[in-house]
């Protein structure tokens, strides 16, 4: 059974994030050069994530504003990572993740403002690899992203 690692929800110290996040990520697993698809219906967040991933050497292979687009983009681009918002128009992130995972095993990290355990459990049950709560900063996102990807790689 695929392991499912979810980040400790305790916020990391801001200073530590600003100063050491890149080196810690390197210590765990470098995501540099990995290809990622960002699925987010908020333009600002989508832009933020794009900038954050690129700043970490991660190629943004595509973006999508809803779940339906996400399924198309992911299955077309076949990225290493998918950052998937849950609440989106047309098709939500959980359904999109389910459809994607049904045909393509990829490390999907769920992004949401919802802290409900129900969503988290559903996401875990679908086979996603991580669950990151908004608001997102590079200090909080990247360690979890790397941990999730490491776990995915360890138990593909």
């Amino acid at each position, binding site marked *: 059974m695929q392991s499912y690692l979810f980040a400790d929800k305790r916020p990391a110290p801001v200073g530590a994030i600003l100063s050491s996040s890149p080196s810690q990520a390197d210590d765990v697993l470098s995501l540099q050069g990995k290809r990622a698809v960002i699925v987010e219906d*908020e333009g600002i*967040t989508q832009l933020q994530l794009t*900038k954050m991933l690129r700043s970490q050497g991660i190629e943004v292979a595509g973006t999508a504003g809803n779940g339906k687009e996400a399924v198309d983009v992911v299955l077309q681009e076949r990225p290493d990572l998918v950052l998937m918002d849950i609440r989106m128009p047309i098709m939500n992130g959980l359904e999109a993740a389910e459809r994607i995972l049904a045909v393509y095993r990829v490390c999907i990290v769920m992004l949401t403002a919802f802290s409900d355990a129900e969503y988290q459990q559903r996401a875990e049950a679908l086979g996603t690899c991580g669950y990151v709560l908004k608001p997102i900063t590079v200090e909080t996102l990247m360690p979890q992203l790397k941990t999730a990807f490491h776990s995915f790689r360890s138990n593909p």
Partner: protein
Amino acid sequence: MRTSSEETEIERLRAEVRHLRRLLNGREQNSEALVRTEPNIALQNRELISTREELEQKARLFDTVLSSIVDFAYTFDREGRFTYVNQALLDLWQMRLEEARGKTFFQLPYPHSLAARLHEQIQTVFRTGQMLRDETPYTGAAGTTGYYEYIFSPVFNPDGQVTAVAGSTRDITERVQAQAEKEALFTALQVERERLTTLFMQAPAFIAVVRGPEHIFEMANPLYLQLVGYRELLGRPVRQAFPEIEGQGFFEILDEVYRTGQAFIGKAMPIRFRAGADAPVRERFIDFVYQPLIEADGSVSGIFVHGVDLTERVAAEKALQASEERVRLATEAAELGIWVWEPATDKVIWENDRMYAIYGLSPLDEPLTSTQFVNEIVHPDDARAFASAIAAPVETGEPLYFEGRFRRKDGSRRWIEFRGRLQQTANGEPLCVAGTAADITERKRAEEQERQAARDARVAAEANAKFRTFFDQGSYFAGVMTLDGTLIEVNRLCLDASGYTREEVIGKKFWDCGWWNRSAELRAMIEAGTQEAARGNVFRRESHYFLADGTRRFLDLILAPVKDEAGRVLFIAPTGTDITERNEAERILRERAGEIEGLNRRLTRSMKETHHRVKNNLQVISAMIEMQVLEHQGEGTVPLEEFVRLKAHVHTLAIVHDLLTASIKENEDAQRVSTRAVLEKLLPMLQQTAWKQSVGYSVDEVQLTSKQCIALSLVLNELVSNALKHGNQQADVFFTVEGESATLAVYDDGAGFPEGFDPKMAANTGLELVGSLVRTDLRGTIQYGNQTQGGGQVIVTFPLPTSEE
């Protein structure tokens, strides 16, 4: 007793004595004359001597003769002195003749009164010359009293003068005694005769005497006459006097007695005769004796009839027997034992077997004395009461009454009741106490059960009163019906509340009552429920029912079986509570609960939405800050204008949030925000940031989603900021709606965009942000260009939200 020959001899001797006396007297007189005649004295003396001798010899002869007789013989002189006493009298006196001679009666052992009488009688004889006969009792020297008859006879001289009195006395004691006995017998006979006469006349028996072979009535006592109705009897033959008795055998019996001389005794023989001339023939019962009267020669001269009329007694005996039989039957029926107790000896007699049965004893056992009863039988706690009860009749004459517990021979404990009364002797002495005994165990049990029943009844009455109060004053409908569903009781509330009268429901089948009979389905349900309750099961339904005026209301109905201790169903108790108001209240409550639940759901949803919105706004702010951090990561600082723009973006978010929240207050489902409301708040705020420039605007009203509104506001904020940055005096904003799309146009009066301007290449976070918002959030397009008269222009076009968004 002397014989007649002896009497004859005595009389002959007496005559001879008298003769001798007379001779003696003559001789003595002659002798005295001779003495007085001197001349012939000698001769005469000789003669006298010869005569004296002869006389003395004769005197001795007389004396011998007189002394040989048992009678007394004696002589007196004129002074009443004894001159001669024969031996018989001397023996009585126990004296010799010499001692007695010359003495008067006064000098002899005679009572003075007797001596005086005798002396006087002697003098009377001297005086009268008449013989005197008399009698007297006399007690001799030996102390023996006898009766004596005496005769004083004058002794005359030749001159006819009385010269002496000769007496003779005969002991007549036996005769007197015989006479006295005869007189006593006669007197007794007379008394007896009178008594017999009285008895005869007053006898409680009927008595008659019939004579001769024809049995002719000679006499009959009053009772006999009364018995036969005072018919004429005396002198009449019995067959003539009693023709109605012919054929009953009595005449034949009389004939037989007369013929044989044998008495006949009849016992309680029935006889039918008339008690009067006109009286009807009636049967009576008599005890009688036909006693033959037998004469000295042995012949039967008549018959003595003696009898007693037993009719009343027989009747009484029959009545008594009947009474005793009734008493016996009654006591047997009443199971009463009969006893007699002698207090003086504590002897007890049990008169019937019931007494033994009461104690569980055999008739061969001895009756229990009161002592045994106290010591062995009666319950110790009741012994004192028993002792008091049996003492009462003797001490006070009060009836005996006792009831108490006792132990039978088999050991069982039972109750007994004694009743008794004192019987006394004729002189009032206590004789015995007689009475009854009864085993009253069952009665006591019944009494106890009765008392218990009374207690139960009181409890039941109290319970019933409580029940009635509860029943009538309760706040629920209640009734009672029989197992076939007939309603026999119903409480007041049930009638008052439903508007029916008792007559309209009592006696009817429950399901036929007006509460149910307006609906066939309802009626069938009630009938089925009643049958279910009659089978012992509780039936409960919430159902509607009808008031007398036809109003339909609701009821919580229970049909409960009323069972006895054995679990048998006795009645069915229908109870019910009108739940119309309760149902209405519950309906309202359910509605309210639904509303609350809806509100809660909406609130939850709203909270989630708010939470999501807040988180999204925070995410937006965070993203903008993060992007500034990333953009200026190598510079070490972020320009102030970026913070001003960030502040404007935060205000923009706040405005949209406020408006959306306000809309939600009016409409919880509101997800749309008025563009005019948002932009007319946002644009004056942007005007405030422009120190010398003015911002003109024109805004069409349209409802956009909050996401579109936020994106539009951020885009507008970014574009106006650029316009003011790059313009001179004026910036204009136009938001127009046309068809299914909206257009935001921002104009400035600056130099305009350079030739070949490519926003992607501008490497401006602000334009990147606008591009991302228009593309992603507004799903629109953006055109950068210049106005023909100069100045830049940015036109954003995006589709209006569909109705489903």
